[in-house]
């Protein structure tokens, strides 16, 4: 461990440069090469609000083990340039044993970097690139990283070839030459952190972003219609689906706004096709009226919210867990619905798949809360198993003898009533946002309102969610528990594993099912616990207050919460958990 407690079996690398400098490309190639060399890794992109030409940073963490969080510090920082570095240096923590490579062509190293005390080595990256026909500084930097960390050259070559094409391509030749120059330059720098020796080649693993993973989970779950309105940081869910949904026979349409996209998916699902849209906070706010329509008319839909800093336009390119309240409570009226949250990038596949299963099984809108960190980061993961839920919407079989008596909103046991799909003779009914009779006719009668409210509540309270409701880990005997959710679970897990190495054990509970509230399940998970700490990334401790208000917590509960845009880092959580547990 270094002085900051970061783990010695991982290496964290940051590449910075203005937009167009190619740091994101180099970061993606680095992750791919490391994956081929048998490493696990996490690739986090940081970019400013500029469309083009703004600052960008590629942050890559490579390890022998699965990684779900950024480390406490970066061990290597290579500045292709220092454009706007003051704005985001705080995202690039350095220690005195970190190595910074700076190009004198960009002037003296910025004060904000110098003051960290990190070792600064000056290398003429631009000049080195100029000596190679079509050579680019980002490829020199990639070579430097490979040389400094001992990344296998074969893996690096394969990663470059995947992006730059055949061996005869001049772009590939230029890049390979630049990478070689970088490797050669690294030899004179001196650096003692090597990539961990890989147990195997990494063959069979996946490289995937959370946004892609959510799209894949939706397809696995049976979604075949998607309406799309672009919004940062959810757009990649939609763009991935645009390219892949048609391959499985589905349809994606770009809507004119979020009001349209939510209604388009309600229309498609009413027609019998499992349907989804993805958005972020501002879009979710626009959709809430119609999500209420889907509650009332009992039309299954899935809405993915890739959260960003809020309120209003907020911080579109940075992560925050602050849409919990609107997801739980944003609908008008008494409107029972489902809210789920993946607990890692890899888990986005399962949770999106499960969201479709829940929506279809209960004929209810299901919200999935991802966030910018999960959505836009790429990870190397073990291929997630396809649980192949036996998802089937309860549809109405109409015969001549039952046609006259068909009641779309019949008060069936369990609350889920058979849904006639348009085209079914004798099943005609009008889906309605007005309160209605079991037959679906508008009604403002006391009895109809009460019985339909009960029906819509009972169907989600009585559902068997199984063990999927939460990730529960750690020591079942421990009297101290940490409760967290969503993307915070990654750094929390790493913090708990570091504490375990010190001999301190905790129970970890990360609910995947956020609504309906599960007080009984939570109480069971907390049995024997004397104290619990709730960790989340929101300014107002939304999750903490939700737990306090809607769950019967059998023990005192404390809160550690703060907003984005900075990620929760393991050493920060180690410190907080240690302080709380010692109190």
């Amino acid at each position, binding site marked *: 461990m270094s002085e900051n407690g970061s783990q010695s079996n991982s290496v964290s690398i940051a590449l910075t440069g203005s937009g167009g400098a190619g740091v994101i490309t180099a970061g993606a190639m680095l992750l791919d090469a490391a994956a081929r060399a048998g490493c696990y890794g996490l690739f986090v992109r940081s970019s400013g609000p500029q469309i083009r030409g703004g600052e960008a940073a590629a942050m890559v963490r490579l390890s022998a083990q699965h990684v779900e969080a950024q480390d406490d510090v970066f061990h290597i920082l290579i500045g292709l340039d220092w454009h706007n570095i003051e704005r985001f240096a705080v995202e690039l923590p350095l220690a005195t044993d970190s190595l910074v490579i700076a190009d004198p062509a960009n002037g003296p190293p910025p004060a904000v970097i110098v003051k960290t005390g990190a070792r600064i080595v000056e290398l003429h990256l631009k000049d080195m690139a100029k000596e190679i026909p079509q050579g680019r500084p980002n490829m020199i930097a990639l070579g430097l990283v490979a040389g400094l960390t001992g990344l296998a050259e074969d893996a690096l070559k394969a990663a470059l070839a995947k992006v730059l094409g055949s061996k005869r391509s001049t772009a590939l030749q230029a890049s390979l030459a630049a990478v070689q120059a970088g490797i050669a330059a690294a030899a004179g720098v001196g650096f003692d952190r090597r990539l961990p020796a890989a147990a195997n080649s990494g063959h*069979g693993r996946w490289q995937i972003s959370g946004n892609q993973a959510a799209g894949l989970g939706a397809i696995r779950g049976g979604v075949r219609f998607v309406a799309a309105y672009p919004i940062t940081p959810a757009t990649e869910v939609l763009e991935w689906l645009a390219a892949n949904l048609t391959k499985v026979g589905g349809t994606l349409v770009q809507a004119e706004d979020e009001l*349209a996209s939510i209604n388009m998916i309600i229309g498609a699902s009413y027609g019998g096709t499992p349907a989804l849209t993805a958005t972020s906070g501002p879009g979710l706010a626009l959709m809430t009226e119609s999500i209420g329509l889907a509650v009332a008319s009992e039309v299954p839909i899935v809405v993915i919210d890739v959260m960003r800093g809020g309120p209003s336009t907020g911080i579109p390119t940075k992560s925050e867990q602050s849409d919990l309240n609107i997801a739980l409570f944003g609908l008008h009226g008494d409107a029972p619905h489902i809210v789920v949250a993946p607990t890692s990038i890899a888990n986005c596949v399962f949770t999106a798949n499960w969201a479709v299963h829940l929506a279809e099984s209960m004929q209810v809108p299901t919200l999935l809360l991802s966030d910018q960190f999960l959505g836009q980061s790429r990870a190397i993961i073990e291929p997630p198993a396809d649980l192949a839920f036996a998802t089937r919407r309860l549809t109405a079989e109409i015969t001549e003898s039952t046609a006259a008596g068909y009641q779309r909103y019949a008060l069936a046991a369990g609350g889920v009533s058979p849904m006639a799909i348009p085209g079914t003779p004798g099943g005609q009914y009008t889906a309605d946002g007005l309160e209605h009779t079991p037959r679906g006719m508008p009604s403002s009668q006391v009895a109809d309102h009460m019985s339909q409210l009960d029906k819509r509540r009972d169907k989600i309270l009585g559902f068997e969610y199984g063990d999927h409701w939460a990730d529960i880990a750690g020591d079942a005997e421990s009297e101290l528990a940490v409760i967290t959710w969503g993307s915070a679970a990654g750094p929390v897990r790493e913090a708990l594993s570091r504490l375990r190495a010190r001999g301190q054990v905790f129970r970890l509970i990360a609910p995947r099912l956020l609504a309906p509230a599960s007080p009984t399940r939570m109480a069971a998970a907390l049995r024997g616990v004397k104290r619990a700490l709730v960790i989340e990334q929101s300014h107002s401790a939304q999750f903490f207050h939700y737990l306090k208000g809607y769950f019967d917590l059998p023990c005192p509960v404390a809160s550690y919460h703060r907003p984005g845009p900075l990620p929760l880092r393991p050493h920060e959580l180690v410190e907080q958990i240690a302080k709380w547990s010692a109190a």
Partner: protein
Amino acid sequence: MNTPAVTASAARAYKSDVKPVWCPGCGDFTVLSSITKAFAELELPPEQIAVISGIGCSSRAPAYLNTYGFHGVHGRATALATGLKLARPDLTVVVTGGDGDGFSIGGNHFLHACRRNVDLTYVVMDNRVYGMTKGQPSPTTEPDWDSALTPGGTGLRAFNPLVIALASGANFIARGFSGDPNGTAQLIVEAIKTPGFSFVEVLSPCVTFRPDQREWRTMVRPAPVSPTHDIGSAARRLMTDDGFNLGVLYTGNRAPYQPPRKTAPATPSEIERQFAV
């Protein structure tokens, strides 16, 4: 214009047994009958039809029909219908609603429904007033029409939905009058038969809040010219008419929007290969 060659009983089969909430004398009663006559003339199986609406007096129509229906939220009916039709191209999808629902809160969706040109038929019962909320001006209301919400009138020029439809790309534009149920039924038949987005404005008086609209009976007339395929002459015609010319006013030949579909779909496990290291 032909009289629909259908019996009243064939049309009645498309009606449900729910009694409309509309005021006695409301134009929407006969527009509803025109819709069912059109279905009967086209001999559409009721289970193959979906009638989609938003909120307002005329948006109550789906419950009064024996077809599939969706009475959704205010202003979003064309969007909901678009999703349904794209997912289920085999269905006949008709959208009904009023001027407030379609041109005010739903204005953006109206533009994009015309532009997208999905094979839908949109019947707007235009009475130039919000009736369900007891008489406020809509985008098609005359600027000097007095109301409690806008004393002395809005002072705003009325919106011309047919011109907007043409400019936005609708493939079929017609105007009917609730006092001419057979003529309106025929317009709806043509609208359904014409591929792409078909827009039918039906002047449908509100006897309660706009009793002055009883005069419409004397003001409407068959359009003095035959339907045009020429967008330039249609624009001139629609921009200059007084809003009381009835009939098919424009038909285009835009191909309806249909997103690409694979005939031999891959399996999810096949597309997952892209993620393999």
